């Protein structure tokens, strides 16, 4: 920017600097019934294209499974949606009005996108209870968190969630001391507390027993409808369970969509069998 235009800007009393605009996302608009648009997204790292011209649309209330070989770019895709990674090109919209690429992580999270990480990440030095409390939906500006107190309704909700994730015995335990699987559960619990409009769940059942997987699947299915859920998982039993007969499954490969459709359709796709399913 030239000095003159800067000067003009400074003297222009009507000019509003970007940093003065409150970081309030516009209202979510899902009038077209599509919650998330990813269009022509490309990302490369040191020349390696991790995401290549990716297009994907998630409907409001949809439960979408995403599968694909290791390194296909699934996690990277979530990184882009949540603002961790900036794509080289393309666009990402949340509803009709919210441009995700212009927002940073907290703004995106506040707009209603929650995420569970592939490697379980919880606040290790806070207790299970506190982890969940912090995740709880609510106003996140400094003043309100300073004054925030749990009301009985919220406490009840917390207790309910703890029960759901099976950590009743560990409420006061530091999250860092949980086992791997327990951390997975805790993270799911945190995601629930956050009440996001869109849940991005990266390999939720890694390290869980079969039965736990079923429970998780149930949980996720029950969330769908009110929320949109995107699940990445390699466990085919789990994915089958989730996808049921008519839900869409997307297969990513080398950064773009290889195949999309119902589980049975995808399973039959020879390309998918070749690069992913095997046998």
């Amino acid at each position, binding site marked *: 920017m030239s000095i003159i235009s800067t000067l003009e800007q400074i003297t222009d009393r009507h000019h509003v600097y970007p940093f003065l605009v409150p970081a309030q996302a516009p209202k979510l608009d899902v009038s077209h019934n599509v919650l998330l648009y990813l269009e022509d997204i490309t990302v490369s*790292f040191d020349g*390696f294209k991790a995401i290549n011209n990716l297009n994907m649309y998630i409907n409001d209330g949809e439960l979408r499974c995403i*599968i*694909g*070989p*290791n*390194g*296909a770019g*699934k*996690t990277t895709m979530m990184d882009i949606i949540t603002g961790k990674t900036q794509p080289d090109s393309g666009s990402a919209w949340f509803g009709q009005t919210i441009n995700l690429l212009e927002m940073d992580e907290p703004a995106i999270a506040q707009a209603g996108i929650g995420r569970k990480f*592939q*490697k379980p990440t919880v606040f290790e030095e806070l207790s299970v209870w506190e982890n969940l409390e912090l995740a709880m939906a609510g106003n996140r500006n400094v003043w309100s968190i300073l004054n925030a107190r749990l009301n009985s309704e919220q406490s009840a909700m917390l207790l309910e969630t703890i029960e759901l994730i*099976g950590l009743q015995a560990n409420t006061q335990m530091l999250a860092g*001391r*949980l*086992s*791997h*699987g*327990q951390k*997975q*559960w805790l993270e799911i619990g945190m995601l629930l507390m956050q009440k996001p409009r869109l849940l991005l769940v990266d*390999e939720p059942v*890694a*390290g*869980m*027993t*079969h*039965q*736990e997987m079923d*429970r998780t699947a149930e949980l996720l299915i029950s969330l769908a409808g009110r929320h949109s859920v995107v699940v990445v998982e*390699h*466990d*085919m039993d789990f994915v089958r369970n989730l996808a049921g007969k008519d839900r869409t499954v997307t297969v990513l490969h080398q950064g773009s969509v290889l195949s999309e459709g119902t589980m049975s359709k995808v399973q039959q796709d020879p390309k998918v069998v070749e*690069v*992913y*399913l*095997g*046998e």
Partner: protein
Amino acid sequence: MLKIEGLNQFYGQSHTLWDVDLHVQEGQCTVLMGRNGVGKTTLLQCIMGHQAVKSGSMMLDGADLLKASVEQRPRMGIGYVPQGRQIFPLLSVEENLQIGLPVRARNDRKIPDYIFDLFPVLAEMMHRRGGDLSGGQQQQLAIGRALVVNPKLLILDEPTEGIQPNVVTEIGDIICKLNREMGLTVLLVEQKLPFARKVGDHFCLLDRGRNVAGGEIATLDDELVKKYLTV
């Protein structure tokens, strides 16, 4: 080959492992199973020396493991694939593999080629930072890395976690191959029953830090599964 008896372990005040026994026979593949948080990882960490042991004995081929320091254990022939991969994030794939080289015999300090045959993706990504790999790629790297030390006992903590199905199958095959063809003894923690059934010879069930069952994999029946593996 590995013989653990009466092992007790504490995290601070909390008693995590209670008189655990574990026998791993030479050339066999033993699967360690149990729900989340029962102490499987902890047990493996005890074997690797990452956790201090309160009481009990632990012998590898007649040598007392408890007396060996952590860094001696790989030299005694243990390869370890930890839960959560534990890749060195800032080292390249190649360097991650090279770390184990000094453990190998003096005249053979080079990464064995069969590792790249097993995991072609590693050869592809040779110069990428380990931390940049995708979760599944890291898992493959972790297994490859453990093989570099030429182990006679390979310990794997949920190795199929986060890996695409065809590779899971492959890993299963590889474990079988290593186990059956190359005579490698394997100790495996696994949650996925079919996989366990496919590769395992023996099993050992833990519940809340205690042995509850064990034996030939064939004897792992639905009742046991229901009792100890479901919630």
